[in-house]
């Protein structure tokens, strides 16, 4: 039983690392800032979710599991909002360049 849980947890964390890697590659390869933000906002969230899910299998204490879940929820909200604010700033610069403001 323990071995299955350990394997599952290793698998999930490796999956998370893969998505982090993919998001980093996307950050480097995508053509402009908005496209790069797709990579950051989406793959990173899934990656963090996988890592946290993997870490949860290593915990016996339900309170620690709850804490891990809270961390993920707050990070999701923060990264979505941060991404939106960044996109808004890019849009303002874009519009200013177009001369519309």
């Amino acid at each position, binding site marked *: 039983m323990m071995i299955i849980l350990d394997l599952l947890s290793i698998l999930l964390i490796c999956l998370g690392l893969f*998505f982090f890697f993919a998001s980093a590659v*996307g950050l480097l390869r995508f053509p402009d800032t908005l*496209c790069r933000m797709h990579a950051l906002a*989406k*793959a990173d969230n899934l990656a963090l979710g996988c890592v946290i899910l993997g870490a949860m299998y290593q915990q016996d204490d339900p*309170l620690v599991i709850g804490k891990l879940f809270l961390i993920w929820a707050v990070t999701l909200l923060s990264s979505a909002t941060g991404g939106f604010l960044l*996109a*808004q700033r890019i*849009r303002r610069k874009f519009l200013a360049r177009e001369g519309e403001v």
Partner: protein
Amino acid sequence: MQEIIHHTNPPGTPPRKGGLQAVGIFVFALVLWKICTGYDPSSWILGIPAAGLFTWFSLTQAESNYRIRFRALPAFLVYFLSQSVLTGLDVAKRALHPEREINPGFCTYPARLPPGSPRALFANMISLLPGTLSWSLVDGVHKVHLLSGHPMILEELAILESRVGKLFGLDLPEEMM
């Protein structure tokens, strides 16, 4: 803008600040505190004031007309998680594919959800669908950046919007008129 069927709390009515709601938020805060601090009973010296602060700051905000229906939460979470996985896979595929499958574009989507939390949550959720990123919300119009445009995008947004609406107890049709 389509007609929205309000089950309760149409916009414009002042937020309900009943004692029951305050107690609910207070208990929720205590649960959060418990999750954070663990099993030490002496933590309540700070925990009860902290939960009080949480309740006060939750109740004294201007625009709390729309509240989440807890009955709708599980279905929404399942949808949210499955979409997260699809989205992550989609982005990872595009990032790692030798020829970049990217054809950036924009689209606009008029909001059907009322302003406030529902509309804001919807904008945040747009960034969750495969290939879409919300990048502005002005006067009820969502501007969406597309990683690669495809014809079904407006329909997908409408489905997402109606899901978000259900979470707040609002009925929206699943397709645009």
